[in-house]
């Protein structure tokens, strides 16, 4: 897929995915590209939503604006999801860590970046 789309918001999304990707390949890999370390790739375009998923357990944040909208519709400000139940998020993170998925994806939760 070339980046020659008409859609600016898609380009911003892709840039955001690239922005949270840190390439940590050694000098050797420049000389010998076949020696690059390999990770099963999370596509750059999907990385921003994956990052949010790792941070809150869901693809979208619930911030002040969303809380306000929810109240207008007669709902509790926070939904009964992992936004409210942090234990569910803690378990998901433990599952991601314990199974090695985070490592395989190269996600550094402290930096909030995918390392390749």
């Amino acid at each position: 897929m070339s980046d020659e789309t008409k859609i600016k918001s898609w380009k911003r999304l892709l840039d955001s995915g690239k922005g949270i990707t840190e390439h940590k390949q050694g000098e050797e890999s420049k000389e010998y590209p076949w020696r690059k370390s390999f990770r099963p790739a999370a596509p750059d375009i999907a990385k921003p939503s994956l990052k949010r998923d790792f941070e809150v357990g869901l693809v979208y944040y619930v911030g002040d604006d969303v809380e306000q909208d929810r109240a207008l519709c007669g709902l509790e400000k926070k939904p009964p999801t992992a936004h409210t139940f942090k234990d569910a998020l803690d378990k998901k993170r433990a599952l991601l860590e314990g199974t090695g998925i985070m490592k395989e994806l190269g996600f550094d939760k402290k930096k909030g970046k995918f390392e390749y």
Partner: protein
Amino acid sequence: MSIDEVQAKMTSVQTESKPAAKEKYGYFLGCVMPAKMPWAEKATILVSKHLGLDFDYMKETLCCVRPGVWKAMNPDWWLTLTSQNLANAEKQGIILVDSCNGCWISHFECLEELKQEPEKMAMINKNLSKIGMKLEGSVKVKHFLEVLYEDVGIEKIKANVKRPLNLRIMRHLGCHARKKGDEFLPRYFDEILKAIGVEIIDTPYDKTCCGLLLYFGDPDSAIFERVGRKMKTAMDLGVDAYAIICSGCYDQFERGVKVMKEEQGVTLEVPIVHFSELLALAFGYKPEDFGMEYCRPIPTTRLIEKFKEGK
């Protein structure tokens, strides 16, 4: 028993809330619904309780684990992460109910695969044991349309209509809901809409994908050839609303509407409404009971006026 008595009994069975006494439903919100569609969330809860269902939120829910992303990266990761939601539902003793097709297909297919392949069930349980959880596989997963059509019944839905909706709509069911054929969720969707008095306008684009996943790889086609074409058709036909049920599809429709307005200067005018909102209106609720006028990419003002004027 006479034929009249048999018919009376059958009608009575159909109009009573069949599952209310037994089944406990847990509504799985997913990612999009609570953040972008609070009106739909509220309407779904109102409608379900109105029909006498033991229906409440499923607690502690996470992302459904989008198969389009996770399964594509690694099917075992998808099975493992999805099984956390399934194990939670099993522990809570509920039937997991999805109204988002993406969430439904993820839960439904994961559970089916785990039941059919014991070694995969063992694999996910080994992983879940790291967080003190376990999945037996006894949990049930249902689409919201399934609950309404099969458990409540079309006769009871009709019996609860206080105000048949005199609206012309285009509808978008979504791809995943077609998994088990046209006689399952697609028919349920249409029959329930007809039961509340809606006139469905068929178009050649009704079965076209919303473009949600296509957006990752081919944004132009996903926006202009999917959402754009559908929404322009809705405008050309002068329908009152575009009805959807899937939150994932809504996410893409909302994105499409914004892109076309902000980047193309095209203003689309037909409001996108959730199926549950139409049911709520037909059951006698007012638009303000579930916030129908708020937080929308396309205002519902004209639709609400038409509804209130009873045109």
